[in-house]
């Protein structure tokens, strides 16, 4: 048998299958949409987990693997909403002497500070940092400059604003050199930070104003003793450094042996762990949803096929009479089922691309599309098609031609 004929046979077969699907289109639509939804969830899982991992890696990179963050209050105190500002300037001074520590950033932040430029108002957090703030965060500028050492020394009213704040107050206009009102303090904008995006699941890092620590403590808050956050960099092992840090602060805070810490330490490792917990719960939730969607649509598909087989007995008989083998009938039914689920799968993938924006807002995690997504989507579609089509197809293939024609 020639190749030409093989191709022409295949063409007739494909055309016939499509016509059959079109003829039974309302039934096909049910299974098709079920599979599309299931595959959509699978695509969202994969891309979101990939996105979360990528994001986590970016944060890890940005923080530097050698960073340790310390903030006031224990985990329990934070949930109980007890007093959280417990870190002191003297803690920071002591920590500079801990072995391996080569950079200490002191931050005192104020939340929900009102700011104003012309008639535009915005409310956000003000972070008062030491001169090494931008170095510690590895954070660059899109325009202007960082505040100067002199501004820090003299507690001058200068600030560097985040991309989000720039967008809200200046809406694309020139910001450098302009004066905004922070609380009641007129402050000169000297720089605009690069956009950084949200930290995994948390608020956007771009929604903040950075000022010299001295200006915040002397002119905005009148705070001489306490700090909100201390960030360290170490050239020793991170976990070993954390042990030392805890010991120093506990001693400085006079916490007795066995007493509860009134502060919390975090390293980049914790952030990675946090992200993996998030993606784990996403996986669990969406994974369950998608498996249910696929199983249900698989059952629907199988049942509809059973119904059609009764209706198509004559169809099967005719094909058998004209030379279709049992295997041929089996394959053609299986093929129909797989075509439906593969088309559903393709629709699911396209849907996930189309709805990307929506999901990113919903989960707060960017989706990362890759070939892997398409691969898994197709595997799952194929599996659903074969598993749900197999039994009906086997039943169809067992029908004797004589029985089918007799009706």
């Amino acid at each position, binding site marked *: *048998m*020639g190749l*030409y*004929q093989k191709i*022409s*046979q295949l063409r*007739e*077969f494909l*055309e*016939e299958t499509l*016509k*059959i699907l*079109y*003829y039974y289109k309302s039934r096909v639509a049910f299974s098709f949409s079920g599979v599309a939804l299931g595959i959509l969830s699978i695509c969202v899982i994969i891309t979101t987990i990939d996105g979360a991992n990528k994001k986590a890696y970016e944060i890890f990179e940005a923080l530097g693997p050698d960073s340790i963050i310390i903030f006031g209050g224990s985990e329990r105190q934070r949930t109980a909403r007890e007093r959280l500002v417990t870190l002191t300037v003297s803690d920071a001074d002591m920590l500079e002497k801990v072995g391996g520590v080569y950079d200490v950033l002191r931050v005192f932040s104020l939340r929900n500070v009102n700011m104003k430029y012309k008639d535009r108002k915005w409310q956000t957090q003000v972070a008062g940092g030491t001169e090494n703030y931008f170095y510690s965060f590895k954070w660059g500028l899109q325009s202007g400059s960082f505040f100067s050492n002199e501004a820090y020394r003299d507690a001058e009213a200068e600030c560097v604003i985040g991309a989000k704040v720039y967008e809200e107050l200046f809406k694309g206009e020139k910001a450098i050199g302009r004066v905004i009102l922070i609380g009641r303090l007129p402050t000169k904008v000297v720089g605009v930070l690069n956009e950084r995006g949200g930290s995994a699941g948390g608020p956007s890092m771009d929604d903040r104003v950075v000022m010299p620590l001295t200006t915040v403590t002397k002119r905005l808050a009148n705070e001489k003793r306490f700090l909100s956050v201390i960030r360290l960099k170490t050239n020793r092992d991170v976990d070993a450094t954390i042990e030392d840090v805890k010991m120093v602060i506990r001693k400085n805070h006079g916490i007795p042996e066995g007493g509860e810490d009134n502060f919390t330490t975090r390293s980049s490792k914790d952030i990675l762990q946090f992200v993996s917990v998030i993606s784990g719960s996403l996986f669990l939730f969406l994974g369950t949803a998608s498996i249910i969607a696929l199983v249900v649509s698989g059952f629907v598909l199988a049942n509809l096929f059973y119904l059609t087989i009764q209706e198509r007995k*004559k*169809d099967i*008989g*005719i*094909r*058998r*009479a*004209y*030379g*279709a*083998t*049992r*295997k*041929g009938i089996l394959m053609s039914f299986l093929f129909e089922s797989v075509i439906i689920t593969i088309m559903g799968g393709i629709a699911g993938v396209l849907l996930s691309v189309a709805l990307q924006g929506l999901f990113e807002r919903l989960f707060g995690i960017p989706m990362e599309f890759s070939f892997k997504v398409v691969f898994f989507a197709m595997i799952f579609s194929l599996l659903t098609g074969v598993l749900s089509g197999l039994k009906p197809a086997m039943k169809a293939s067992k029908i004797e*031609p*004589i029985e089918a*024609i007799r009706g």
Partner: protein
Amino acid sequence: MIILKNIKKSYFIGERELSILKGINLRIHKGEFVILMGVSGSGKTTLMNIMGLLDTKTYGEFYFMDTRVEDLNDEALAGFRNRHIGFVFQQFFLLPYLNAIENVLIPIVYSDKEIRHPREKARQLLERFNLADRTHNRPAQLSGGEQQRVAIARALINDPDLILADEPTGALDSKTGGEIMELFRMLNEDGKTVLVVTHDPKLASYGKRLIRIEDGTISEDITT
């Protein structure tokens, strides 16, 4: 072409054996036009189904194209049907979702015969049966006579040696039925072996050989 030796067929309904064919001896040669006649329940359709490799005998010897049929498995039987037999049924049995030309092409999908330009061949067959302007109509848009002519074109697309027709005029009025029988006569004159199963005595005159079945046995076999 077909040799039947003492063919018996019975069904079991519970414990009770229901004998349909009670020892049929028959030879059908290439180029014959046979009318197989009998009343309903005489076993004529069962006999046709066995000769068409759609049903199996209970007892006896059956050779089709010099091959012992009981040696053939499902795949070989399907291949034999595809290569050698064209079926025509009382209810036409066209597939509702395919148009005329696609219905004619069904046997091609399962064929291993070398047929170049099958679509062109299907169109020519339909033209020959005065269906040139009906090639893209669905069965529901065709009259009974037109549907049966499409079915006959389908039976011919694969160049079979034998055409088996089971009550091909049963669902048609007598004028259209006569036209269909004329068509079979024409195909027979072209060299096809034709076997028509019917209960209608009026069709007897179309064939060259009349075989009468009564109660599972051949009661008359006349060659005119």
